[in-house]
């Protein structure tokens, strides 16, 4: 197991190289140049030349790539064209916001989706099952921006009980330790700050968690149904084990492999792709950073972000592979 983990973790290096090469090639191929996006509407031809030279954009593409790899090897991912800060600093300042939001949304989806899925599998085609499924499909059919704006209009506007956006109130003054606001508040015993942080988290969490709840519920239900038909469940029932024990201890445990897979995938998607929610709620996460990077053709920022995503996803995959072997001892990693 240890050997497997180590091997997989080292495997990240070729993956990163391939990803960076692909990104680089695509950015060269994509129309639109960073200089045009950087200069002001009034810029002169000299402005354009000066900026191109300042960022090394006048160099041939292979030279640019070689420079990038050379610097990246020392942990320097370059300086963002637009924000003129080291890419690492920019990303690290915003990553906690994205991960915190993704974690809460995932927790919400697990807390709601799994019990609903198990219950639906216990009584397939019951009224409960039908309503649950329809709710889940409704959740996924309504795009995030629609749900997000609706939430803002209701909870921030009409009821006026939650803030309309942002991550913290002005002047919260909470020293950062981990960057996760709720955790920092608890660590410092700042209960007022914790309440604030949770209030700001509430709406984006619900919006992000809704679609995920639907798919977790459905996958739990489907895998449970699959397992409830297996011989060992029959045997367990024949042995007189209670329905609850059969459902949770036997069928659910075996369904867990699929459920964990989906949770991992969705969590990954949330870290990288909460773009719409971040826009609607002015959430200072990294999804927005990527979109801005792409629209401004901010090459170092895009490359840096994608490489960080890649690393995170590789770690996530390894972690999930390890989880498989824990929940289902029959699975061995070779």
């Amino acid at each position: 197991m240890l050997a497997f983990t180590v091997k997989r973790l080292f495997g990240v290096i070729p993956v990163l190289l391939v990803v960076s090469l692909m990104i680089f090639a695509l950015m060269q191929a994509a129309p639109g140049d960073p200089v045009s996006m950087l200069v002001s509407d009034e810029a002169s031809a000299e402005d354009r030349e000066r900026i191109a030279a300042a960022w090394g954009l006048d160099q041939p593409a292979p030279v640019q790539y070689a420079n990038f790899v050379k610097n990246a090897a020392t942990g320097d991912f370059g300086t963002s064209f637009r924000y003129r800060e080291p890419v690492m600093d920019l990303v690290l300042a915003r990553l906690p916001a994205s991960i915190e939001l993704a974690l809460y949304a995932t927790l919400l989806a697990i807390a709601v989706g799994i019990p609903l899925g198990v219950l639906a599998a216990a009584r397939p085609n019951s009224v409960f099952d039908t309503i649950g499924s329809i709710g889940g499909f409704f959740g996924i059919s309504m795009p995030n921006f629609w749900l997000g704006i609706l939430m803002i209009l209701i909870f921030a506007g009409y009821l006026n009980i939650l803030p309309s956006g942002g991550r913290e109130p002005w002047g919260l003054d909470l020293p950062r330790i981990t960057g996760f606001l709720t955790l920092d508040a608890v660590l410092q015993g700042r209960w007022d700050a914790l309440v604030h942080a949770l209030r700001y988290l509430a709406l984006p969490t619900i919006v992000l968690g809704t679609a995920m709840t639907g798919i977790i519920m459905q996958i739990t239900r489907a895998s449970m149904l699959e397992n409830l038909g297996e011989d060992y469940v029959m045997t367990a029932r024949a042995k007189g084990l209670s329905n609850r024990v059969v459902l949770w201890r036997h069928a659910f445990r075996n369904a867990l492999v699929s459920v964990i897979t989906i949770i991992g995938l969705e969590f990954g998607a949330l870290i990288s792709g909460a773009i719409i929610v971040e826009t609607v709620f002015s959430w200072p996460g990294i999804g927005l950073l990527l979109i801005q990077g792409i629209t401004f053709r901010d090459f170092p920022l895009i490359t840096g972000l994608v490489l960080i995503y890649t690393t995170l996803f590789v770690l996530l995959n390894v972690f999930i592979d390890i989880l498989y072997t824990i929940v289902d001892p029959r699975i061995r990693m070779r």
Partner: protein
Amino acid sequence: MTTATYTRARMSYGFLLTPKAIFGLIMIGALIIAGAFAPFIAPFNPARQDLLMAMTPPQLTGPHYLGTDHVGRDLLSRLIYGARVSLLIAIAVVFFSGIVGVFLGIVSGYFGGRIDSFIQKFLEVFWAFPPLLLAIAIVAFLGQSLTIVIVALASQRWIPYCRLARAETMALRDREFVVAARSLGAGHARILREHILPNIIPSTLVVGTFAMATAIISEAALSFLGLGVPPSIPTWGGMLADARAYISTSWWMALFPGLCIFLTVLGINLLGDVLRSHFDPKIKNF
């Protein structure tokens, strides 16, 4: 609840004439027919504008039963025409990504080792890759078209199938019936086809149904950036993107395309349930 009721519940999935199946068939059938015969059904030309009638709310007595959009186009007609492209995108994306993903997933999970590690690396390369960037680059070479939307969306949609199929295959590969088949001399291809594949269909179907909805909605995101289908062609996703600015003032612009996606997903899911119980080997135990 006892085994008996459980069995009955499973049995009631039955074959293609259950209420669920009929309902699903009607829903999907209606949408496909609407798209196919759009010019005969739609009350208006979907591109016809009437600025004076812009943002008319739904009218029970017509002529604009579902209202009009920001430039006065008839929403119902656009929904009917929109079914063409949107269903095509949804089905094409789910179909292609499903086949690729499941194939790579079961191979990865069944053989493990080097093959697994290679396929997983391949997957990791694609996973973090922004499809938006891919779309921008392809548009530059091939121009704005439907194919780009499908390629850009499918470039990542195969990943969930692959991870899921792999996980389930890993859990299955040392189970009694697989071991038995192997000892009886069945080849790898046959084991994968006859013993592994049928068992991973249910969860694949769940992922597929949800992927349909996200494919239609994601097309809107691409449209919004000008990378989707050319703007003269109505799509549900494009209509949703248009509606974004008018949510609090013209609710119908977002609601009806959303409902169409909902009905599609629901219909596909109902059909999927039926297909699943039809093809699931364990059903025969009952």
